[in-house]
């Protein structure tokens, strides 16, 4: 398992940080924003002001480290649903994310120039999309790499196999980024596959696989950057298994006390990916402590502004059922809209 930064925040012997301090600070801020949003969203959800959503907590190094290896201007992200900070870094507005989870279709809108596919709910269905997208961009000489997120659960779906197999054949510039967070809802990794690792499947598709410590920002970043560079150079796909753990429930409707062993949870809490980066930075330079301390208020402010933006947007309306279904809607749909939106009975 690739490891750079150990839990005490010390670089492993013979390794160097792949990022300079300013970048590490920026990544840390994003990780903290994500953690703060998890808490805010859960509290809004309990108040009935937010829908069911999946928190990132515990996986911030995995998500941020991988997204950091991409160039948002050229590269694409194809998400599952647990990668908020990656979407933000890539340019998706937090207020849209909020609107989406408030149940407002407008939240699904991806601004022009933001290279994202929508959040995916149907597990693993995004994997072939990512392969086709990468293949098509390559065909058009677009110099773009596609990174697709998915989980240990998703790796059991047929779509995983078909997507990997096709990617190997066409040499698509795609990085399969598997977040093995230990669980698919209540199903533990050991009930998901009898294979020793999930990354070892890659070899049989004709491309490399790697296992990284998913709670190690540097290891995730470095390994993903290597895969992105290979893809950009025409070297084809890579499968990265990022071994991490979600610290919270599957989503806000879940009750993990039914299936999580408290000792295991305790073990992983001690490996918190955010603490590790903070320790590293403070060990490098005691002055960083103050900047880090300022992040809390800073991200809280950003979240409040995004919430205000979201709340200030247009209210939901009946027309949203009909917008963006077809470029050129069938007459029957036009009439259904007329009845429902314009009130013609």
């Amino acid at each position, binding site marked *: 398992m690739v490891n750079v930064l150990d839990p005490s925040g010390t670089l492993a012997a013979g390794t160097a940080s792949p990022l300079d301090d300013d970048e590490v600070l920026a990544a840390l801020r994003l990780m903290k924003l994500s953690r703060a949003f998890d808490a805010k969203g859960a509290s809004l959800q309990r108040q009935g002001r937010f829908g069911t959503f999946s928190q990132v907590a515990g996986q911030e190094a995995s998500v941020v480290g991988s997204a950091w290896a991409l160039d948002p201007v050229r590269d694409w992200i194809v998400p599952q649903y647990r990668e908020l900070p990656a979407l933000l870094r890539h340019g998706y507005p937090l207020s849209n994310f909020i609107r989406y989870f408030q149940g407002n279709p407008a939240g699904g809108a991806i601004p022009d120039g933001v290279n994202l596919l929508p959040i995916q709910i149907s597990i693993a269905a995004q994997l072939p999309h990512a392969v086709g997208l990468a293949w098509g961009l390559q065909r058009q000489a677009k110099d773009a790499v596609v990174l697709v997120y998915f989980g240990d659960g998703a790796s059991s779906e047929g779509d995983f196999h078909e997507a990997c197999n096709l990617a190997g054949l066409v040499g698509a510039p795609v990085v399969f980024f598997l977040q093995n967070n230990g669980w698919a809802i209540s199903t533990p990794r050991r009930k998901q596959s009898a294979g020793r690792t999930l990354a070892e499947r890659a070899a049989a598709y004709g491309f490399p696989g790697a296992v990284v410590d998913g709670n190690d920002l540097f290891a995730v970043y470095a390994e993903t950057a290597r895969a992105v560079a290979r893809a950009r150079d025409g070297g084809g796909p890579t499968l990265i298994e990022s071994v991490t753990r979600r610290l919270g429930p599957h989503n806000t409707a879940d009750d993990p006390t039914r299936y999580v062993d408290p000792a295991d949870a305790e073990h992983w809490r001690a490996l918190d990916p955010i603490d590790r980066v903070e320790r590293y930075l403070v060990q490098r330079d005691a002055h960083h402590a103050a900047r880090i301390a300022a992040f809390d208020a800073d991200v809280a402010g950003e979240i409040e502004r995004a919430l205000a933006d979201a709340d200030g947007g247009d209210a939901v309306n009946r027309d949203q059922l009909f917008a963006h279904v077809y470029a050129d809607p069938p007459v029957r749909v036009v009439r259904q809209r007329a009845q429902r939106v314009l009130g013609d*009975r």
Partner: protein
Amino acid sequence: MPVMTMIQAIRAGLDEALETDPRVMIVGEDVGALGGVFRATDGLQAKYGEARVVDMPLAEASIVGAALGLAVSGMRPIAEIQFLGFAHQAFHQIGQQVARMRFRSQGHCAVPLVLRAAFGGGVRTPELHSDAFEAFYAHCPGLKVVMPATAYDAKGLLATAIADPDPVLFCEPLRGYRLVKDDVPDEPYRVPFGQLRIARAGREVTLVAWSAAVQLAERAADALAAGGISAEVLDLRTLNPLDVDGLAAAVARTGRCVVVQEAPLSGGFGAEVVATLVETAFYHLQAPVERVSAPDTPYPLAGVEDFYLPSVDDVVHAARRTLAAA
């Protein structure tokens, strides 16, 4: 007789099946320690062990395909598909394999398999969780399709499904899981397939529904009653077998009919109901049979689902239109 919610009735039915028949197994995602995302299998793994209540990997085609193999081997699998929308991943296994194995083996390989799936709207789920996709399955010869609307029927139809020597898709309305409550006997009983239920008797217009739309139709009947109109509500209970005669007889009595479906209009099962009535009760129809449904657009995000789903008002208006006609 105890009052149970629908989910309690289903759990009781599963428990009874595991208790009385050692061949019965439950397979599905998160059916074990979690007890299923809606708790339909709560406590069953603890009671019957990991060999009989099995957490499966996240792969619907193999859940259904392996259940077919289990059934052929002599077991009586009950497979849970977490949401009907995710049965799409197993569509080839359901429509072509499970439904046709008896036919393709000329009776040698029977597939006594129950596929349970939660479905339908109104409970603010994430995308793709709420569609009412029953029409796809009602167009698959060889597959029975069961749509209980009450807790009593849920337990009784589940028992019939488990005893059936052929595959059954058993669709459970998300909206009814905790909201619908009624009397459910503790002892075993079966509700037969292919016999509709008159959920409420009436004289002037017939409202036809199934699953969660039955309660919608009942609320519409209340509203119509308040306006002095007597509406009958039919609960189809099973789409295949369809109670063709019961349907024709009931609509013949009123001559006016509204079919209520949660799915988008075009190609929904409501069309089959209308076409069947045209074949069996045409000369009794005093007005066009109306369909009330969702529009022909995808199930939207939760914030607008109330606009999307058919409403009591929609049903009332449609019923009044049929009464005003000719």
